[in-house]
């Protein structure tokens, strides 16, 4: 399916001049590596067409593998010399990207269209000062500019994107910046040559929600100020909703739906778009009430895990960093405790301490009355099966060189209670329980999608029949639709097996969907704690309030700036 629509920003209106970006019939195909498959051709983008008027803003949304980033890269001709097969036509500000020679393409890149990437730390050269990197880009496009002029321009744009004391900070290297500042610096780099188009590829995905809010604000400001066009590539409908005029929804390399934001969000024409919207977790919607008789306020005997004044430091001497400080927390059997916080809040460290992957440096941690905080590895083995964890990254949490069946069977084999046949049977049962084909015992992790791998991770955690599972950002690497499924699965399991869950996430909306109680962390300490709905609806602490306010909402589209 192709869509032939011209999107123009409502603010800019139609212009006589041609569109800023005109893409028609774009296909990008990669040949898979040798031996990767018989056909070996992957069509990442398939017959895509769209236009963007000068000054307009288009959001390209889709789940991973939808080809949204590939399409964005084609705008700058970044597929050249990579072995990718690009067909169709791409015109940016009158330049035919496909036909341009190498020099022409280099002039286009940065000069006409500039790109902002996802991970601001790895996207900057770690060995050079930020200002120098921006100056270098400037001089690529302004050959007659002196070093001094280039540096001045770098300081100017850094100042513009809100880096305090820009002239001095320009001499800092990327690792001396915070995440938000790095993303600002990347945007400054994009601004350096006054491009007509800004292509932002998941510019806020790696950022905390409050920082994300600031960066999106900055992008809006800059657009208004410079009148440049914006193509925002994101998986997050909420992010797109507040920042663009038009939305292009992609799936499997094709455009599914294209139209003004409001139309797409509120009157989606396609089923896929509807599903997508339905799956997005809403921070302002209460959790479905539980049907089972949960021990709402069970007695003390139901306390599984109790942490008091827990503390963890990393490093020694002067360089010691306190990741978790004076945290007290109680988890009762069968309940879900949500832990939210931004990066660096210590939530992951806390989670790992709760299952004793890390040893606390201070405080007390007791499981069913036994102090497991300072236990030696050998003694701890008796408790291992009862405390399990589901990890964030579905890629690194499964050993790529072992079949998933073996990974799941591992705790069973370690326990040594069952014979081989019984273990296989149990693994098949577990696979079925988490919604996977029991026959996939002998398959390897790379044959599964992210969501399926996360299910495998859950099956592995369930295998030893634990009493408590700590889920550390279990869905943050997943697409929204998958996310919803996995969250639902966790809910079911908890209900059926009476598990206690500690659900750690930075995403307030997801946490709300699962939690009975909520803990908000900041800087290694707990700033607020209480029943989930209470915290969400009547946050007491200013930090919690700010956090909630920064969450992007689809409703934002209803009230465009």
């Amino acid at each position, binding site marked *: 399916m192709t869509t032939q629509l011209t999107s123009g920003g409502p603010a800019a209106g139609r212009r006589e001049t041609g569109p800023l970006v005109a893409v028609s019939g774009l296909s990008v195909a990669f040949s898979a590596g040798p031996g990767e498959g018989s056909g070996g051709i992957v069509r990442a983008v398939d017959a895509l067409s769209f236009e963007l008027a000068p000054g307009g803003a288009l959001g390209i949304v889709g789940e991973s593998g939808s080809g949204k980033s590939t399409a964005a890269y084609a705008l*700058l001709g970044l597929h050249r010399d990579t072995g990718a097969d690009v067909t169709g036509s791409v015109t940016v500000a009158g330049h035919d990207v496909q036909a341009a020679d190498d020099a022409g393409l280099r002039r286009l890149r940065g000069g006409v269209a500039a790109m902002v990437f996802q*991970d601001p730390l790895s*996207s900057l050269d770690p060995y050079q000062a930020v200002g120098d990197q921006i100056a270098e*880009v400037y001089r690529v496009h302004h050959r007659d500019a002196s070093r001094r002029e280039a540096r001045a321009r770098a300081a100017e744009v850094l100042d513009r994107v809100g880096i305090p004391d820009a002239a001095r900070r320009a001499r800092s290297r990327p690792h001396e910046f915070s995440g938000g500042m790095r993303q600002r610096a990347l945007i400054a780099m994009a601004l350096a040559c006054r491009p007509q188009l800004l292509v932002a590829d998941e510019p806020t995905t790696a950022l905390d929600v409050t920082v994300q809010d600031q960066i999106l604000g900055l992008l809006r400001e800059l657009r208004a100020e410079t009148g440049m066009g914006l193509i925002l590539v994101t998986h997050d409908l909420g992010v797109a909703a507040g920042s663009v005029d038009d939305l292009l929804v992609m799936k499997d390399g094709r455009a599914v739906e294209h139209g003004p934001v409001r139309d797409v969000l509120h009157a989606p024409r396609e089923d896929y778009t509807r599903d997508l919207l339905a799956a997005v977790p809403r921070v302002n919607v209460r959790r479905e009430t539980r049907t089972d008789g949960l021990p709402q306020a069970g007695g003390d005997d139901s306390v599984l895990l109790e942490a008091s004044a827990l503390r963890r430091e990393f490093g020694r001497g002067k360089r010691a960093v306190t990741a978790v400080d004076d945290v007290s927390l109680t988890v009762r059997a069968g309940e879900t405790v949500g832990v939210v916080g931004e990066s660096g809040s210590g939530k992951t460290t806390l989670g790992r301490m709760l299952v004793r992957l890390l040893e606390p440096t201070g405080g007390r941690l007791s499981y069913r009355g036994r102090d497991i905080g300072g236990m030696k590895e050998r003694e701890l083995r008796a408790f291992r099966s009862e405390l399990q964890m589901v990890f964030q990254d579905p890629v690194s949490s499964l050993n790529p060189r072992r079949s998933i069946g073996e990974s799941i069977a591992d705790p069973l084999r370690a326990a040594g209670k069952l014979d081989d046949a019984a273990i296989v049977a149990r693994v098949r049962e577990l696979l079925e329980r988490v919604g996977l084909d029991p026959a996939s015992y002998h398959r390897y992790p790379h044959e599964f999608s992210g969501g399926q791998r996360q299910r495998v991770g859950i099956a592995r955690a369930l295998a030893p029949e634990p009493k408590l599972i700590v889920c550390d950002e279990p869905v943050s690497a997943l697409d929204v639709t998958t996310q919803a499924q996995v969250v639902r699965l966790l809910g079911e399991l908890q209900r059926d097996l009476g598990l206690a869950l500690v659900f750690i996430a930075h995403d307030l909306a997801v946490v709300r969907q699962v939690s009975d109680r909520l803990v908000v962390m900041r800087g290694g300490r707990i700033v607020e704690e209480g029943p989930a709905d209470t915290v969400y609806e009547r946050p007491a602490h200013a930090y919690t309030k700010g956090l909630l306010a920064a969450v992007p909402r689809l409703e934002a589209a209803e009230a465009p700036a």
Partner: protein
Amino acid sequence: MTGYLLRRAAGALAVLLVLSVVVYATFYIAPGDPARLACGPRCNPGQIAQVRAQLSLGDPVYLQYWHFLQGIVAGHDYSTGTALLHCDAPCFGLSYQNNQQVTDMLIERLPATASLAVGAMAVALLLGTGTGLLSALRRGGITERVLTWLTLAGTATPVFISGLGLLMLFCAYLAWLPFPTYVPLTGDPEQWAWNMLLPWAALGLLESAKYARLMRSSMLETLAEDHIRTFRAYGVAERKLVTRHALRGAVAPVIALSAADFGSMFGGAVLTEMMFGLPGIGALLVHATTTLDLPVVVAVVMVTGTAVVIANIVADVLYAAADRRVALR
């Protein structure tokens, strides 16, 4: 940093101590009687006994070892027959063979070994990184192929073959270079370099392939990093991408490895030194080993050990510097 270095230095001392014990032990396991060898070919038992007493070889091993340690810390007095000779700390004793002070022998021979190691490492790095760079960028064509084959052939050829080949080619046939004779750097730097050229080449070639391979994978790794993509997306030319942005990161692990290798090259270039007649400590070690000249063997091993340990510390520091990002992540 200072604390780190102090800790490493303490560790290094321990290493050297263990090393010396190992050498002493090995030495007493090895066949042959040093007194007999020191005495001469046709000594009678009485004479050998005299020499054994004179070299204190009759003492218990632990006592000999203790005196060795004392010598290093506080110096030692030796009889030359006519007078007492004071050997200042650090004293590694006197050579069994000709009563020379081992410390002096080492000092005399270190420059040649150091010259060889430094130059050969430079050759290996230049050749290796150059080849690796070319093959990573797939731009090499003929040059890249030739260099790759050259480094591989270099690795597959023992230095006693390649060394002789180089000598015959460059000194005998083409007569472009003099037959290497070691000229001290302090004496005549130009002659020093000319004379060291072939030894450098022979040893450098042997080591180069390793760096070529490491450089290649390191470069590929770096080129796949996100910040390279950033600058490519801003129209920075490919050549500049490599020289300004990729090279530094890619070269770091190579340098770190080379620092570690440098240490072992210090003591391990025995064959090169012998082939080119360089008066270095490797050649000294061979002589000393075959004549069971324990004080010399121990001293050479101590020097080599020190070089290895220092090189390892340097390698670790370099690695930490190069991997700053990883540490921060």
